[in-house]
Protein backbone atom coordinates (compact mmCIF):
# COMPACT_ATOMS: atom_id res chain seq x y z
CA UNK A 1 0.00 0.00 0.00
CA UNK A 2 2.56 2.53 1.05
CA UNK A 3 4.57 2.11 -2.12
CA UNK A 4 2.01 4.03 -4.16
CA UNK A 5 2.73 7.41 -2.81
CA UNK A 6 6.46 6.86 -2.44
CA UNK A 7 7.06 8.00 -5.98
CA UNK A 8 10.00 10.11 -5.03
CA UNK A 9 11.51 12.20 -2.33
CA UNK A 10 9.01 14.98 -2.92
CA UNK A 11 5.92 12.88 -3.34
CA UNK A 12 6.71 10.97 -0.19
CA UNK A 13 5.97 14.00 1.92
CA UNK A 14 2.47 14.08 0.53
CA UNK A 15 1.57 10.65 1.79
CA UNK A 16 -0.49 12.12 4.57
CA UNK A 17 -2.54 14.33 2.29
CA UNK A 18 -3.01 11.47 -0.12
CA UNK A 19 -4.29 9.18 2.56
CA UNK A 20 -6.58 11.88 3.84
CA UNK A 21 -8.45 12.20 0.56
CA UNK A 22 -12.03 11.14 1.01
CA UNK A 23 -13.79 8.78 -1.35
CA UNK A 24 -16.88 10.69 -2.31
CA UNK A 25 -19.47 8.07 -3.06
CA UNK A 26 -18.63 4.68 -1.61
CA UNK A 27 -20.42 2.70 -4.32
CA UNK A 28 -18.87 4.39 -7.38
CA UNK A 29 -15.57 4.31 -5.52
CA UNK A 30 -15.80 0.55 -5.15
CA UNK A 31 -16.73 0.20 -8.82
CA UNK A 32 -13.74 2.25 -9.86
CA UNK A 33 -11.58 0.07 -7.64
CA UNK A 34 -12.87 -3.01 -9.42
CA UNK A 35 -12.19 -1.33 -12.78
CA UNK A 36 -8.61 -0.59 -11.71
CA UNK A 37 -8.16 -4.22 -10.69
CA UNK A 38 -9.54 -5.48 -14.02
CA UNK A 39 -7.26 -3.21 -16.04
CA UNK A 40 -4.27 -4.17 -13.91
CA UNK A 41 -5.00 -7.86 -14.48
CA UNK A 42 -5.45 -7.28 -18.22
CA UNK A 43 -2.01 -5.67 -18.40
CA UNK A 44 -0.27 -8.36 -16.38
CA UNK A 45 -1.92 -11.34 -18.15
CA UNK A 46 0.62 -11.54 -21.02
CA UNK A 47 3.45 -11.73 -18.47
CA UNK A 48 1.64 -14.32 -16.36
CA UNK A 49 0.86 -16.29 -19.50
CA UNK A 50 4.53 -16.19 -20.47
CA UNK A 51 5.54 -17.52 -17.03
CA UNK A 52 2.82 -20.19 -16.97
CA UNK A 53 3.59 -21.38 -20.51
CA UNK A 54 7.28 -21.62 -19.68
CA UNK A 55 6.42 -24.26 -17.06
CA UNK A 56 4.23 -26.32 -19.42
CA UNK A 57 5.34 -29.11 -21.71
CA UNK A 58 5.66 -28.14 -25.39
CA UNK A 59 2.54 -30.19 -26.22
CA UNK A 60 0.44 -28.43 -23.55
CA UNK A 61 1.84 -25.01 -24.48
CA UNK A 62 0.53 -25.16 -28.04
CA UNK A 63 -3.10 -26.13 -27.56
CA UNK A 64 -6.25 -24.31 -28.59
CA UNK A 65 -8.16 -23.63 -26.36
CA UNK A 66 -5.28 -23.05 -23.93
CA UNK A 67 -4.58 -25.73 -21.32
CA UNK A 68 -4.26 -23.48 -18.31
CA UNK A 69 -4.20 -26.28 -15.76
CA UNK A 70 -1.80 -28.59 -17.56
CA UNK A 71 0.84 -30.22 -15.33
CA UNK A 72 3.91 -28.10 -14.66
CA UNK A 73 7.34 -29.15 -15.87
CA UNK A 74 10.84 -27.74 -16.25
CA UNK A 75 11.17 -29.18 -19.76
CA UNK A 76 11.19 -25.73 -21.40
CA UNK A 77 13.95 -24.50 -19.10
CA UNK A 78 16.00 -27.65 -19.62
CA UNK A 79 15.72 -27.17 -23.35
CA UNK A 80 16.59 -23.46 -23.17
CA UNK A 81 19.69 -24.13 -21.08
CA UNK A 82 20.76 -26.65 -23.69
CA UNK A 83 20.46 -29.90 -21.77
CA UNK A 84 20.92 -32.43 -24.54
CA UNK A 85 21.41 -30.00 -27.40
CA UNK A 86 24.57 -28.34 -26.18
CA UNK A 87 23.67 -24.79 -27.23
CA UNK A 88 23.94 -22.87 -24.02
CA UNK A 89 22.60 -19.35 -23.46
CA UNK A 90 25.08 -18.79 -20.64
CA UNK A 91 27.77 -17.02 -22.72
CA UNK A 92 25.16 -14.52 -23.94
CA UNK A 93 23.77 -13.98 -20.45
CA UNK A 94 27.29 -13.44 -19.13
CA UNK A 95 28.02 -11.01 -21.98
CA UNK A 96 24.89 -9.05 -21.14
CA UNK A 97 25.88 -9.02 -17.49
CA UNK A 98 29.40 -7.84 -18.33
CA UNK A 99 28.17 -5.11 -20.66
CA UNK A 100 25.47 -3.89 -18.25
CA UNK A 101 27.55 -3.98 -15.07
CA UNK A 102 30.68 -2.35 -16.49
CA UNK A 103 28.64 0.26 -18.34
CA UNK A 104 26.82 1.07 -15.09
CA UNK A 105 30.09 1.41 -13.15
CA UNK A 106 31.61 3.62 -15.85
CA UNK A 107 28.46 5.73 -15.94
CA UNK A 108 28.68 6.30 -12.20
CA UNK A 109 32.39 7.16 -12.35
CA UNK A 110 31.73 9.76 -15.04
CA UNK A 111 28.37 11.11 -13.93
CA UNK A 112 28.97 11.68 -10.22
CA UNK A 113 31.87 14.15 -10.68
CA UNK A 114 29.93 15.78 -13.53
CA UNK A 115 26.80 16.10 -11.40
CA UNK A 116 28.97 17.59 -8.64
CA UNK A 117 30.21 20.23 -11.05
CA UNK A 118 26.62 20.93 -12.06
CA UNK A 119 25.06 21.25 -8.64
CA UNK A 120 27.24 21.65 -5.56
CA UNK A 121 29.87 23.82 -7.19
CA UNK A 122 28.17 24.70 -10.45
CA UNK A 123 30.25 25.82 -13.39
CA UNK A 124 29.10 28.88 -15.24
CA UNK A 125 26.25 28.23 -17.70
CA UNK A 126 25.66 24.86 -16.07
CA UNK A 127 22.10 24.67 -17.40
CA UNK A 128 23.44 24.76 -20.96
CA UNK A 129 25.68 21.81 -20.13
CA UNK A 130 22.71 19.93 -18.69
CA UNK A 131 20.73 20.44 -21.87
CA UNK A 132 23.65 19.45 -24.02
CA UNK A 133 23.80 16.10 -22.20
CA UNK A 134 20.05 15.68 -22.57
CA UNK A 135 20.12 16.46 -26.28
CA UNK A 136 22.56 13.60 -26.88
CA UNK A 137 19.99 11.17 -25.46
CA UNK A 138 17.55 12.41 -28.09
CA UNK A 139 19.92 11.60 -30.93
CA UNK A 140 18.60 8.39 -32.52
CA UNK A 141 20.97 5.43 -32.36
CA UNK A 142 20.60 4.97 -36.11
CA UNK A 143 22.16 8.41 -36.62
CA UNK A 144 25.57 7.21 -35.50
CA UNK A 145 25.49 3.47 -35.86
CA UNK A 146 27.10 3.25 -39.30
CA UNK A 147 30.30 5.20 -38.46
CA UNK A 148 30.55 3.22 -35.23
CA UNK A 149 30.20 -0.01 -37.19
CA UNK A 150 32.83 1.09 -39.73
CA UNK A 151 35.16 2.17 -36.94
CA UNK A 152 34.71 -1.16 -35.16
CA UNK A 153 35.39 -3.01 -38.38
CA UNK A 154 38.50 -0.95 -39.07
CA UNK A 155 39.88 -1.25 -35.53
CA UNK A 156 38.99 -4.90 -35.04
CA UNK A 157 36.56 -4.12 -32.22
CA UNK A 158 33.69 -5.86 -33.96
CA UNK A 159 32.24 -8.64 -31.81
CA UNK A 160 34.00 -7.23 -28.75
CA UNK A 161 31.97 -6.79 -25.57
CA UNK A 162 34.04 -3.76 -24.47
CA UNK A 163 32.80 -1.79 -27.44
CA UNK A 164 29.27 -2.33 -26.16
CA UNK A 165 30.39 -1.28 -22.66
CA UNK A 166 31.60 2.06 -24.05
CA UNK A 167 28.48 2.60 -26.16
CA UNK A 168 26.09 1.70 -23.34
CA UNK A 169 27.99 4.11 -21.11
CA UNK A 170 27.43 6.97 -23.52
CA UNK A 171 23.78 5.93 -23.97
CA UNK A 172 23.13 6.13 -20.23
CA UNK A 173 25.37 9.02 -19.28
CA UNK A 174 22.83 11.81 -19.89
CA UNK A 175 20.19 10.03 -17.82
CA UNK A 176 22.69 9.47 -15.03
CA UNK A 177 23.95 13.07 -15.06
CA UNK A 178 20.39 14.37 -14.81
CA UNK A 179 19.42 11.93 -12.08
CA UNK A 180 22.56 12.39 -10.02
CA UNK A 181 22.29 16.16 -10.30
CA UNK A 182 18.75 16.10 -8.99
CA UNK A 183 19.98 14.11 -5.98
CA UNK A 184 23.14 16.15 -5.35
CA UNK A 185 21.09 19.35 -5.57
CA UNK A 186 19.44 18.29 -2.31
CA UNK A 187 22.74 18.25 -0.44
CA UNK A 188 22.87 21.24 1.90
CA UNK A 189 25.92 23.10 0.60
CA UNK A 190 26.27 25.29 3.73
CA UNK A 191 26.83 22.29 5.94
CA UNK A 192 29.38 20.94 3.49
CA UNK A 193 31.24 24.24 3.46
CA UNK A 194 31.17 24.60 7.20
CA UNK A 195 32.51 21.08 7.50
CA UNK A 196 35.31 21.71 5.03
CA UNK A 197 36.39 24.76 7.08
CA UNK A 198 36.22 22.68 10.17
CA UNK A 199 38.43 20.03 8.59
CA UNK A 200 37.87 17.16 10.96
CA UNK A 201 34.15 17.28 10.37
CA UNK A 202 34.30 16.68 6.64
CA UNK A 203 34.37 12.89 6.66
CA UNK A 204 31.69 12.82 9.31
CA UNK A 205 29.54 15.20 7.26
CA UNK A 206 30.04 13.14 4.15
CA UNK A 207 28.87 10.08 6.01
CA UNK A 208 26.06 11.62 8.04
CA UNK A 209 24.66 14.24 5.67
CA UNK A 210 25.77 13.51 2.12
CA UNK A 211 25.65 9.72 2.02
CA UNK A 212 21.99 9.36 3.10
CA UNK A 213 20.97 11.69 0.27
CA UNK A 214 23.35 10.47 -2.41
CA UNK A 215 23.41 6.71 -1.87
CA UNK A 216 19.74 6.13 -2.77
CA UNK A 217 20.39 8.27 -5.83
CA UNK A 218 23.36 6.15 -6.84
CA UNK A 219 21.30 3.00 -6.33
CA UNK A 220 18.42 4.31 -8.45
CA UNK A 221 20.73 5.56 -11.18
CA UNK A 222 22.56 2.23 -11.32
CA UNK A 223 19.34 0.26 -11.63
CA UNK A 224 18.02 2.44 -14.46
CA UNK A 225 21.32 2.27 -16.36
CA UNK A 226 21.47 -1.47 -15.83
CA UNK A 227 17.94 -1.94 -17.22
CA UNK A 228 18.57 0.16 -20.33
CA UNK A 229 21.87 -1.60 -21.06
CA UNK A 230 20.41 -5.05 -20.51
CA UNK A 231 17.48 -4.32 -22.87
CA UNK A 232 19.49 -2.91 -25.78
CA UNK A 233 19.19 -4.77 -29.09
CA UNK A 234 20.06 -2.65 -32.13
CA UNK A 235 23.71 -1.93 -31.25
CA UNK A 236 24.31 -5.44 -29.95
CA UNK A 237 22.72 -7.00 -33.00
CA UNK A 238 24.81 -4.88 -35.37
CA UNK A 239 28.16 -4.94 -33.58
CA UNK A 240 28.39 -8.46 -32.16
CA UNK A 241 28.58 -11.82 -33.86
CA UNK A 242 29.37 -14.96 -31.94
CA UNK A 243 31.73 -14.16 -29.07
CA UNK A 244 30.18 -10.96 -27.70
CA UNK A 245 26.56 -11.90 -28.43
CA UNK A 246 24.21 -10.53 -25.73
CA UNK A 247 21.03 -12.06 -24.32
CA UNK A 248 18.58 -9.95 -26.41
CA UNK A 249 20.47 -10.99 -29.55
CA UNK A 250 20.30 -14.61 -28.40
CA UNK A 251 16.53 -14.18 -28.06
CA UNK A 252 16.23 -13.09 -31.70
CA UNK A 253 16.93 -16.75 -32.53
CA UNK A 254 13.29 -17.32 -31.60
CA UNK A 255 11.91 -14.85 -34.16
CA UNK A 256 10.94 -17.59 -36.62
CA UNK A 257 8.88 -20.47 -35.23
CA UNK A 258 10.63 -23.81 -34.99
CA UNK A 259 7.96 -26.45 -34.54
CA UNK A 260 7.00 -26.99 -30.92
CA UNK A 261 9.08 -24.35 -29.18
CA UNK A 262 6.63 -22.14 -27.28
CA UNK A 263 7.50 -23.36 -23.76
CA UNK A 264 11.20 -23.05 -24.49
CA UNK A 265 10.71 -19.56 -25.93
CA UNK A 266 8.66 -18.43 -22.93
CA UNK A 267 11.31 -19.85 -20.60
CA UNK A 268 13.97 -17.91 -22.54
CA UNK A 269 11.93 -14.69 -22.47
CA UNK A 270 11.33 -15.08 -18.74
CA UNK A 271 14.95 -15.87 -17.85
CA UNK A 272 16.26 -12.93 -19.87
CA UNK A 273 13.65 -10.57 -18.39
CA UNK A 274 14.17 -11.72 -14.82
CA UNK A 275 17.08 -9.37 -13.94
CA UNK A 276 15.10 -6.40 -15.27
CA UNK A 277 11.94 -7.43 -13.42
CA UNK A 278 13.91 -7.75 -10.18
CA UNK A 279 15.78 -4.46 -10.69
CA UNK A 280 12.58 -2.70 -11.74
CA UNK A 281 10.50 -3.84 -8.79
CA UNK A 282 13.36 -2.97 -6.45
CA UNK A 283 13.59 0.53 -7.93
CA UNK A 284 9.83 0.96 -8.43
CA UNK A 285 9.73 4.24 -6.58
CA UNK A 286 12.64 5.69 -8.55
CA UNK A 287 11.49 4.51 -11.98
CA UNK A 288 9.56 7.69 -12.80
CA UNK A 289 12.45 9.89 -11.87
CA UNK A 290 14.85 7.92 -14.02
CA UNK A 291 12.55 7.58 -17.01
CA UNK A 292 11.70 11.27 -17.01
CA UNK A 293 15.42 12.07 -16.68
CA UNK A 294 14.87 13.52 -13.23
CA UNK A 295 12.25 16.02 -14.39
CA UNK A 296 9.50 14.38 -12.36
CA UNK A 297 10.09 13.39 -8.78
Amino acid at each position, binding site marked *: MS*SITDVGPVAATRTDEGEARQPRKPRSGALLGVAAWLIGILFVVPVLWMVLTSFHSEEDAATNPPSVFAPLTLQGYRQFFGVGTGTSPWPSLLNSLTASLFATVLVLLL*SIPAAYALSIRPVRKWTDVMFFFLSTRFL*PVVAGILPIYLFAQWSGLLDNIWLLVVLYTSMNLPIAVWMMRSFLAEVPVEILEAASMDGAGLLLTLRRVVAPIVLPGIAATSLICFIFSWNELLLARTLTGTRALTAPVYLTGFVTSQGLFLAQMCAAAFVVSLPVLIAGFAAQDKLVQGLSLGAVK
Partner: protein
Amino acid sequence: MSTTLETGTGRGQQPPTPPPPSPPPGDALRRTADWARRAPLLPALIFTIIITQLPFVATLVISFMDWNAYYPDERGFTGLSNYVNVLTDVNTRHAIWVTIVLTVVVVLVSLLLGMGIALLLDRQFRGRGIVRTMMITPFLVVPVAAALVWKHALFNPEYGLLNGTLTWIWSVFGSDNPPQPDWITTAPLAAIEVSLIWQWTPFMMLILLAGLQSRPLDVIEAARIDGASAWQIFRYMTFPHLRRYLELGALLGAIYIVQTFDAVFVITSGGLGTANLPYVIYQTFYTAHDYGLASAAGVITVIGTILIATLALRTVSTLFQEENAR
Protein backbone atom coordinates in the same frame (compact mmCIF):
# COMPACT_ATOMS: atom_id res chain seq x y z
CA MET B 1 36.66 29.75 -3.00
CA SER B 2 39.69 27.57 -2.62
CA THR B 3 40.75 25.53 -5.57
CA THR B 4 42.03 22.49 -3.72
CA LEU B 5 38.55 21.35 -2.94
CA GLU B 6 37.22 21.30 -6.45
CA THR B 7 39.83 19.08 -7.97
CA GLY B 8 38.35 15.90 -6.64
CA THR B 9 35.27 14.50 -5.05
CA GLY B 10 36.82 11.37 -3.68
CA ARG B 11 38.59 10.65 -0.47
CA GLY B 12 41.96 11.99 0.52
CA GLN B 13 40.77 15.55 0.32
CA GLN B 14 42.86 17.67 2.59
CA PRO B 15 41.00 20.38 4.39
CA PRO B 16 41.99 23.42 2.40
CA THR B 17 43.99 26.19 3.90
CA PRO B 18 41.41 28.85 4.61
CA PRO B 19 41.26 31.13 1.61
CA PRO B 20 41.73 34.85 2.03
CA PRO B 21 38.32 36.38 2.71
CA SER B 22 38.08 38.01 -0.70
CA PRO B 23 40.88 37.12 -3.07
CA PRO B 24 41.89 39.87 -5.44
CA PRO B 25 40.15 38.97 -8.68
CA GLY B 26 43.32 38.35 -10.63
CA ASP B 27 42.63 37.06 -14.08
CA ALA B 28 44.99 34.10 -13.92
CA LEU B 29 43.74 33.11 -10.50
CA ARG B 30 40.14 33.20 -11.60
CA ARG B 31 40.89 31.20 -14.69
CA THR B 32 42.55 28.50 -12.60
CA ALA B 33 39.57 28.47 -10.30
CA ASP B 34 37.22 28.18 -13.27
CA TRP B 35 39.13 25.24 -14.66
CA ALA B 36 39.23 23.57 -11.27
CA ARG B 37 35.49 23.95 -11.17
CA ARG B 38 35.13 22.45 -14.64
CA ALA B 39 37.57 19.59 -14.08
CA PRO B 40 35.08 17.06 -12.66
CA LEU B 41 32.77 17.79 -15.59
CA LEU B 42 35.29 17.33 -18.37
CA PRO B 43 35.63 13.51 -18.49
CA ALA B 44 31.88 13.07 -18.95
CA LEU B 45 31.67 15.92 -21.43
CA ILE B 46 34.59 14.80 -23.57
CA PHE B 47 33.42 11.19 -23.50
CA THR B 48 29.93 12.22 -24.63
CA ILE B 49 31.23 14.43 -27.42
CA ILE B 50 33.53 11.70 -28.77
CA ILE B 51 31.00 8.88 -28.62
CA THR B 52 27.85 10.69 -29.73
CA GLN B 53 28.81 13.78 -31.72
CA LEU B 54 31.71 12.47 -33.83
CA PRO B 55 29.77 9.51 -35.28
CA PHE B 56 26.94 11.84 -36.19
CA VAL B 57 29.31 14.19 -38.01
CA ALA B 58 30.66 11.17 -39.86
CA THR B 59 27.09 10.12 -40.75
CA LEU B 60 26.51 13.60 -42.10
CA VAL B 61 29.62 13.38 -44.31
CA ILE B 62 28.80 9.86 -45.55
CA SER B 63 25.25 10.94 -46.37
CA PHE B 64 26.68 13.08 -49.19
CA MET B 65 28.74 10.18 -50.54
CA ASP B 66 28.06 7.44 -53.02
CA TRP B 67 29.35 4.55 -50.93
CA ASN B 68 28.24 0.97 -51.26
CA ALA B 69 30.48 -1.66 -49.70
CA TYR B 70 29.70 -4.01 -52.60
CA TYR B 71 31.18 -1.51 -55.07
CA PRO B 72 34.18 -0.10 -53.18
CA ASP B 73 35.72 1.44 -56.30
CA GLU B 74 32.81 3.78 -56.94
CA ARG B 75 33.16 5.70 -53.70
CA GLY B 76 32.88 9.46 -54.07
CA PHE B 77 30.85 12.52 -53.26
CA THR B 78 27.48 12.82 -54.94
CA GLY B 79 25.93 15.84 -53.31
CA LEU B 80 22.28 15.51 -52.44
CA SER B 81 21.47 12.43 -54.52
CA ASN B 82 21.13 10.15 -51.47
CA TYR B 83 18.59 12.54 -49.99
CA VAL B 84 16.72 12.65 -53.28
CA ASN B 85 16.72 8.84 -53.30
CA VAL B 86 15.44 8.59 -49.73
CA LEU B 87 12.64 11.04 -50.38
CA THR B 88 11.60 9.60 -53.76
CA ASP B 89 12.04 5.86 -53.15
CA VAL B 90 8.72 4.18 -52.44
CA ASN B 91 10.14 2.03 -49.63
CA THR B 92 11.84 4.78 -47.67
CA ARG B 93 8.94 7.14 -48.14
CA HIS B 94 6.65 4.48 -46.81
CA ALA B 95 9.06 3.96 -43.88
CA ILE B 96 8.84 7.66 -43.00
CA TRP B 97 5.06 7.39 -43.03
CA VAL B 98 5.12 4.20 -40.92
CA THR B 99 7.42 5.87 -38.39
CA ILE B 100 5.04 8.81 -38.04
CA VAL B 101 1.91 6.64 -37.75
CA LEU B 102 3.54 4.23 -35.29
CA THR B 103 4.82 7.03 -33.07
CA VAL B 104 1.61 9.07 -33.08
CA VAL B 105 -0.71 6.10 -32.46
CA VAL B 106 1.40 4.54 -29.73
CA VAL B 107 2.02 7.83 -27.94
CA LEU B 108 -1.60 9.02 -28.08
CA VAL B 109 -3.22 5.73 -27.08
CA SER B 110 -0.78 4.93 -24.28
CA LEU B 111 -1.08 8.51 -23.02
CA LEU B 112 -4.88 8.33 -22.89
CA LEU B 113 -4.85 4.87 -21.29
CA GLY B 114 -2.09 5.97 -18.93
CA MET B 115 -4.13 8.99 -17.84
CA GLY B 116 -7.26 6.93 -17.23
CA ILE B 117 -5.33 4.39 -15.19
CA ALA B 118 -3.43 7.06 -13.28
CA LEU B 119 -6.75 8.68 -12.33
CA LEU B 120 -8.03 5.30 -11.14
CA LEU B 121 -4.85 4.64 -9.16
CA ASP B 122 -4.94 8.07 -7.56
CA ARG B 123 -7.99 6.95 -5.57
CA GLN B 124 -8.21 4.89 -2.42
CA PHE B 125 -9.12 1.27 -2.92
CA ARG B 126 -8.14 -2.11 -1.62
CA GLY B 127 -4.93 -3.46 -3.10
CA ARG B 128 -3.87 -0.23 -4.81
CA GLY B 129 -0.20 -1.12 -4.37
CA ILE B 130 -0.69 -4.51 -6.00
CA VAL B 131 -2.52 -3.02 -8.99
CA ARG B 132 0.24 -0.43 -9.40
CA THR B 133 2.86 -3.17 -9.39
CA MET B 134 0.86 -5.20 -11.92
CA MET B 135 0.62 -2.13 -14.13
CA ILE B 136 4.37 -1.56 -14.12
CA THR B 137 5.22 -5.16 -15.04
CA PRO B 138 4.85 -4.84 -18.86
CA PHE B 139 7.48 -2.11 -18.86
CA LEU B 140 9.93 -4.43 -17.09
CA VAL B 141 9.87 -7.19 -19.70
CA VAL B 142 12.89 -6.97 -22.01
CA PRO B 143 11.49 -5.46 -25.26
CA VAL B 144 12.68 -8.35 -27.44
CA ALA B 145 11.14 -10.85 -25.03
CA ALA B 146 7.88 -8.90 -24.95
CA ALA B 147 7.71 -8.80 -28.74
CA LEU B 148 8.40 -12.55 -28.91
CA VAL B 149 5.66 -13.30 -26.40
CA TRP B 150 3.16 -11.16 -28.34
CA LYS B 151 4.15 -12.72 -31.64
CA HIS B 152 4.18 -16.40 -30.68
CA ALA B 153 2.25 -16.80 -27.43
CA LEU B 154 -0.56 -14.28 -28.01
CA PHE B 155 -1.02 -13.45 -31.71
CA ASN B 156 -0.30 -16.90 -33.18
CA PRO B 157 -3.42 -17.97 -35.12
CA GLU B 158 -3.17 -21.66 -34.17
CA TYR B 159 -2.18 -21.74 -30.52
CA GLY B 160 -1.95 -18.08 -29.43
CA LEU B 161 -3.78 -17.00 -26.30
CA LEU B 162 -6.02 -14.54 -28.19
CA ASN B 163 -7.52 -17.15 -30.50
CA GLY B 164 -7.46 -19.69 -27.68
CA THR B 165 -9.62 -17.35 -25.64
CA LEU B 166 -11.98 -16.90 -28.59
CA THR B 167 -12.31 -20.68 -28.91
CA TRP B 168 -12.99 -20.95 -25.21
CA ILE B 169 -15.63 -18.16 -25.20
CA TRP B 170 -17.38 -19.61 -28.26
CA SER B 171 -17.41 -23.10 -26.72
CA VAL B 172 -19.04 -21.68 -23.59
CA PHE B 173 -21.93 -20.62 -25.84
CA GLY B 174 -21.99 -24.04 -27.48
CA SER B 175 -20.37 -23.08 -30.77
CA ASP B 176 -17.48 -25.06 -32.20
CA ASN B 177 -16.87 -22.55 -34.99
CA PRO B 178 -15.08 -19.60 -33.37
CA PRO B 179 -13.43 -16.84 -35.42
CA GLN B 180 -9.68 -17.48 -35.61
CA PRO B 181 -8.13 -14.42 -37.23
CA ASP B 182 -4.48 -14.37 -38.24
CA TRP B 183 -3.78 -11.17 -36.30
CA ILE B 184 -0.32 -10.32 -37.61
CA THR B 185 -1.11 -10.96 -41.28
CA THR B 186 -4.46 -9.15 -41.12
CA ALA B 187 -3.22 -6.06 -39.29
CA PRO B 188 0.57 -6.15 -39.03
CA LEU B 189 1.11 -2.53 -38.01
CA ALA B 190 -1.73 -2.67 -35.48
CA ALA B 191 -0.18 -5.80 -33.97
CA ILE B 192 3.11 -3.96 -33.44
CA GLU B 193 1.24 -0.95 -32.07
CA VAL B 194 -0.69 -3.06 -29.57
CA SER B 195 2.47 -4.64 -28.19
CA LEU B 196 4.14 -1.22 -27.91
CA ILE B 197 1.09 0.38 -26.29
CA TRP B 198 1.11 -2.46 -23.78
CA GLN B 199 4.73 -1.65 -22.91
CA TRP B 200 4.46 2.15 -22.91
CA THR B 201 1.17 2.71 -21.07
CA PRO B 202 2.91 2.00 -17.73
CA PHE B 203 5.50 4.66 -18.55
CA MET B 204 2.82 7.28 -19.18
CA MET B 205 0.86 6.10 -16.15
CA LEU B 206 3.87 6.54 -13.86
CA ILE B 207 4.60 10.08 -15.05
CA LEU B 208 0.94 11.14 -14.87
CA LEU B 209 0.47 9.54 -11.44
CA ALA B 210 3.43 11.54 -10.19
CA GLY B 211 1.75 14.61 -11.69
CA LEU B 212 -1.57 13.83 -10.00
CA GLN B 213 0.12 13.36 -6.66
CA SER B 214 1.78 16.75 -6.89
CA ARG B 215 -1.55 18.57 -7.17
CA PRO B 216 -2.25 21.22 -4.53
CA LEU B 217 -4.91 19.25 -2.68
CA ASP B 218 -6.06 22.04 -0.38
CA VAL B 219 -7.24 24.08 -3.35
CA ILE B 220 -9.11 21.10 -4.79
CA GLU B 221 -10.66 20.41 -1.40
CA ALA B 222 -11.78 24.04 -1.23
CA ALA B 223 -13.33 23.79 -4.69
CA ARG B 224 -15.14 20.64 -3.67
CA ILE B 225 -16.53 22.31 -0.57
CA ASP B 226 -17.64 25.23 -2.74
CA GLY B 227 -19.72 22.72 -4.71
CA ALA B 228 -17.61 22.06 -7.81
CA SER B 229 -18.52 18.80 -9.53
CA ALA B 230 -16.00 16.03 -10.15
CA TRP B 231 -16.00 16.90 -13.85
CA GLN B 232 -15.48 20.61 -13.15
CA ILE B 233 -12.58 19.80 -10.84
CA PHE B 234 -11.02 17.59 -13.50
CA ARG B 235 -11.64 20.04 -16.35
CA TYR B 236 -10.54 23.25 -14.64
CA MET B 237 -8.07 22.11 -11.99
CA THR B 238 -6.64 18.63 -12.53
CA PHE B 239 -6.28 18.81 -16.30
CA PRO B 240 -4.47 22.18 -16.44
CA HIS B 241 -2.11 20.89 -13.74
CA LEU B 242 -1.58 17.63 -15.61
CA ARG B 243 -0.99 19.36 -18.93
CA ARG B 244 2.72 19.75 -18.49
CA TYR B 245 3.05 16.13 -17.39
CA LEU B 246 1.03 15.04 -20.42
CA GLU B 247 3.37 17.04 -22.64
CA LEU B 248 6.41 15.57 -20.94
CA GLY B 249 5.09 12.01 -21.28
CA ALA B 250 4.13 12.56 -24.92
CA LEU B 251 7.44 14.06 -25.91
CA LEU B 252 9.73 11.68 -24.02
CA GLY B 253 7.59 8.77 -25.24
CA ALA B 254 7.79 10.05 -28.82
CA ILE B 255 11.57 10.25 -28.65
CA TYR B 256 11.87 6.66 -27.47
CA ILE B 257 9.18 5.29 -29.81
CA VAL B 258 10.54 6.97 -32.95
CA GLN B 259 13.57 4.74 -32.37
CA THR B 260 11.55 1.51 -32.10
CA PHE B 261 13.51 -1.35 -33.59
CA ASP B 262 12.97 -4.44 -31.44
CA ALA B 263 9.21 -4.82 -31.97
CA VAL B 264 9.39 -4.34 -35.75
CA PHE B 265 12.37 -6.68 -36.03
CA VAL B 266 10.70 -9.45 -34.01
CA ILE B 267 7.02 -9.29 -34.91
CA THR B 268 7.15 -8.75 -38.68
CA SER B 269 10.87 -8.47 -39.51
CA GLY B 270 9.94 -5.33 -41.37
CA GLY B 271 7.63 -7.23 -43.69
CA LEU B 272 4.00 -6.56 -44.58
CA GLY B 273 4.68 -2.84 -44.93
CA THR B 274 5.72 -2.29 -41.32
CA ALA B 275 9.36 -1.26 -41.81
CA ASN B 276 9.97 2.01 -40.02
CA LEU B 277 13.00 4.28 -40.46
CA PRO B 278 15.28 2.63 -37.87
CA TYR B 279 14.55 -0.77 -39.42
CA VAL B 280 15.09 0.47 -43.00
CA ILE B 281 18.35 2.13 -42.01
CA TYR B 282 19.50 -1.06 -40.29
CA GLN B 283 18.62 -3.04 -43.40
CA THR B 284 20.13 -0.55 -45.83
CA PHE B 285 23.54 -0.58 -44.22
CA TYR B 286 23.65 -4.03 -42.60
CA THR B 287 22.18 -6.10 -45.42
CA ALA B 288 22.35 -3.93 -48.55
CA HIS B 289 25.59 -2.19 -47.52
CA ASP B 290 24.46 1.07 -49.10
CA TYR B 291 26.22 3.33 -46.64
CA GLY B 292 25.41 6.62 -48.33
CA LEU B 293 21.67 5.96 -48.52
CA ALA B 294 21.53 4.66 -44.93
CA SER B 295 23.30 7.78 -43.70
CA ALA B 296 20.95 10.11 -45.53
CA ALA B 297 17.97 8.29 -44.01
CA GLY B 298 19.68 8.58 -40.61
CA VAL B 299 20.10 12.33 -41.02
CA ILE B 300 16.43 12.65 -41.97
CA THR B 301 15.48 10.72 -38.80
CA VAL B 302 17.61 13.13 -36.79
CA ILE B 303 15.92 16.15 -38.35
CA GLY B 304 12.55 14.70 -37.43
CA THR B 305 13.73 13.95 -33.93
CA ILE B 306 15.15 17.46 -33.51
CA LEU B 307 11.71 18.86 -34.25
CA ILE B 308 10.23 16.76 -31.44
CA ALA B 309 13.24 17.22 -29.18
CA THR B 310 13.07 21.01 -29.35
CA LEU B 311 9.56 20.81 -28.00
CA ALA B 312 10.62 18.21 -25.43
CA LEU B 313 13.54 20.29 -24.20
CA ARG B 314 11.28 23.29 -23.81
CA THR B 315 8.85 21.29 -21.69
CA VAL B 316 11.57 19.73 -19.57
CA SER B 317 13.19 23.09 -19.05
CA THR B 318 9.94 24.62 -17.77
CA LEU B 319 9.58 21.80 -15.24
CA PHE B 320 13.26 22.11 -14.44
CA GLN B 321 13.08 25.85 -13.78
CA GLU B 322 10.01 25.52 -11.63
CA GLU B 323 11.71 22.86 -9.59
CA ASN B 324 14.77 25.04 -9.11
CA ALA B 325 12.67 28.04 -8.21
CA ARG B 326 11.11 26.15 -5.33
